[in-house]
């Protein structure tokens, strides 16, 4: 249990350190939640890449897909003056289609996943540029714009009813309550574990509520964050508690053994690419909603942070597996560490240096802790 939580503990200490150092400029709930709100596309792409990382494949096309789908949503409404639902439908279709092509290339034509998805990603980014003549696309006076509800959905100031957020959080906590059973020490009896576990959950929740004022954070959850939460919960269930998810894990662990155990390996991997493409399209739609326009290469800078979040998930409450919760937590903390330093006076051009440093630091720390135990 300790090895699996060490990175999270370090994250919390860093957060605390920033709080003590920068006081209210950092410990500003609304500003910190705004950071997370703005990272929704990155986190969504992080979820998109873990779906294929679990069966052991890299999908580098997700940022290209996100760029292309942003242009599809914005361009088809603004430039081609199509009804908005058609534009969104086209964006989703692009995501699914590119995912399918990736899957077929990798599984049936045996192209290395790195190369195949590097190629399809480049094609997507390129098509977006061709479509827009390499220029910015957005509503101008006289052209139709995306519907107001969609723009509201993308802005931080519009909040969903708090009750809905609470329901989702309760669901996530209940889920986590069962998931941690994996870490029960073999020597502990069921009742002892149940008591310890409940005590731990209650104390964590109490600390969250009274020390960090959980409810003020919850009140800042925007519509887009709510959507991310919903997608994350669905994905967590999908990856842990369905045949598809279990089979993906098995494929990633030992492909030939999975085939011998009756898993239809190729099919499932293709499906995972399709799902990854779908999530990348959701990321693109989120970009369109929050920015209200599409600029060239808009998502390409998100690729590395998305992979960083995905790989951080292997050391956040995890024994080396890619997890949904870890991707979100890891991704958010990377953002906060970066922001903390910037608030503290570091020029914002340092963001990538910090991202890279956090990734390497967190993964090597937790590997070192785990190594020491044998």
């Amino acid at each position, binding site marked *: 249990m300790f090895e699996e939580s060490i990175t999270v503990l370090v994250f919390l200490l860093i957060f605390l350190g920033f709080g003590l150092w920068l006081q209210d400029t950092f410990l500003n709930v609304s500003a910190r939640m705004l950071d997370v709100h703005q990272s929704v596309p990155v986190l969504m792409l992080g979820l998109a890449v873990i779906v294929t990382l679990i069966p052991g494949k890299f999908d580098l096309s997700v940022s290209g897909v996100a760029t292309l789908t942003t242009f599809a949503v914005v361009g088809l409404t603004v430039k081609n003056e199509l009804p908005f639902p058609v534009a969104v439908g086209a964006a989703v279709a692009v995501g699914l289609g590119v995912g399918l092509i990736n899957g077929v290339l990798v599984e049936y034509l045996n192209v290395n996943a790195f190369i195949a998805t590097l190629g399809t990603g480049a094609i997507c980014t390129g098509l977006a540029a061709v479509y827009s003549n390499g220029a910015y696309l957005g509503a101008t006076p006289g052209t139709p714009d995306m519907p107001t509800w969609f723009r509201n959905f993308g802005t931080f100031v519009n909040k969903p009813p708090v009750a809905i957020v609470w329901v989702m959080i309760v669901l996530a906590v209940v889920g986590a309550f069962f998931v941690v059973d994996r870490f029960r020490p*073999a020597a502990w009896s069921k009742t002892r574990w149940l008591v310890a576990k409940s005590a731990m959950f209650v104390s964590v929740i109490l600390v969250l509520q009274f020390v960090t004022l959980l409810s003020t954070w919850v009140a800042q959850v925007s519509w887009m964050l709510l959507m991310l939460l919903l997608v994350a919960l669905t994905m967590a269930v999908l990856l842990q508690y369905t*045949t598809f998810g279990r089979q993906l894990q*098995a494929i990633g*662990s030992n492909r030939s*053994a999975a085939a*011998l*155990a*009756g898993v239809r390996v190729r099919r499932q991997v293709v499906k995972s690419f399709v799902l990854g493409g779908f999530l990348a399209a959701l990321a693109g739609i989120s970009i369109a909603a929050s920015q209200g326009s599409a600029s060239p290469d808009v998502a390409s800078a998100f690729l590395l942070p998305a992979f960083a979040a995905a790989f951080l998930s292997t050391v956040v409450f995890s024994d080396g597996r890619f997890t949904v919760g870890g991707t979100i937590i890891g991704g958010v903390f990377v953002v906060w560490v970066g922001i903390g330093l910037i608030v503290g006076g570091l020029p914002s051009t340092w963001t990538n240096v910090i991202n890279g440093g956090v990734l390497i630091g967190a993964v090597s720390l937790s590997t070192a802790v785990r190594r020491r135990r*044998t």
Partner: protein
Amino acid sequence: MQDPGSHTLEVDGLRKSFGSNEVLKGINLTIRSGEFIGLMGPNGAGKSTLIKILAGVYQASSGQIRLGGRTLTSLGDTEDVAFIHQDLGLVDALTIAENFALGNPPQRLFGPILNKRAERTSAARALGLVGLDLSVDTLLSDLTPGQKTLVAVARAMDRGARILIVDEATSTLPPRDAQGVILSLAAAAAAGATVVMVTHKLSEILEATSRVLVILDGEMVRDAPTHGLDRAALVEMLMQHESDPHNLDDASHQTRDPVLELRGVHFEDLGPIDLTLNAGEVIGISGLPGSGLHDIALLVNGTLKPHKGEVVESRPRLTRALVPPHRESQGGFGELSIRENMALSALGRWRRLSRVLKPRREELDCARVASELSIKPASIDTTFDILSGGNKQKVIFGRALLLNPDVFVLCEPTRGVDVGTRSEIYRLIRELARGGAAVLVASSDAEDLFSVCDRVALVADGRLQQLRPVSELSTSELELMV
């Protein structure tokens, strides 16, 4: 040539814990030159852990290791000691001589020019020691598994090892190859080397060793000279209830409907193969490595598709489960838990209409099968990787049990499992047949054939010989067959 006392291996109060799990609870040992030690004990007793500590793979929590009076942290870096694990550490793409040269300080003519000739003569001499009549230029990939093991032994001797420590090197070998390995180890011991061998095969202990050590639950419970022991005494030492392999309930074969048929099947060098599996019957096939024994099993399972001929299923959507022949590479998922490993093939059992699995039911079912197979450690959330060899085998067997298919295809079902579990697996296989499943056992272990099978046949020269009822065969006939 050397003072025999200088190679006495002493182990004193050796303890090892993984987290809160104490695996070795104070092991004491003294082994003198020329002894051939058989190390036995149930799956998960701690045999491999002891050997890995000696080899320096793990660090002991406390205790001492002494070689010839010197205290060492491990024997791993000592030239006098060689370890032969199941994974032999040989490279398939290289020749025997090149494999010998790997890891040795290069013999040089002058400058950077290697003295290939010296390497080859010393390799040839070592091959002679283990009785292998092969050119040193043979590629490793052209050897049988048994020959590879012998090459590993020869390499250890070539490096001047005086102590050979062998962990289940024979469990994956067909009997004749295993015999060869045991004989050359015995010869090495007779020539003054010390041999420590882990095995689950009683016959190997009786045939070759001079002393038997038994580990139970991390404690050395018995230490006795082999001389004067027999099979029954060994079984008793292992404290397992003895199985009576011959009480097959022949009366209970009510239904014998054909379930699956191979008709004139050809695959690579195999064929034509005709084979019918019936509900409620256990069919055993055996053969030498390279005979295509496991290919037939994979054809039955549908993993391999015949080049010619057909596989006829008696009903649509016939379910089949496979225990694959190579546990490490084809069987398990190292990073996943016991539960996830066992549940994989049978996930459909716990699927709701919404397609989300019922985790509690899954957990209960997996825990039940795990305890039926007495998998250790008992927690099904344990990672597969850290299980002992025999327990890995049980988990993979458990996966097939959970699926509960119409046809079981079991390759080497008892490879590396201890005496007690072996009889438990036999009992389970009989029960499967009684429950109406068709079972195919493809094994190179004669005991598997005469303990559970109704009819058996040999694969030779690409053909499957006539199936014969086991009751008509004597044990010696069966052992000759294999």
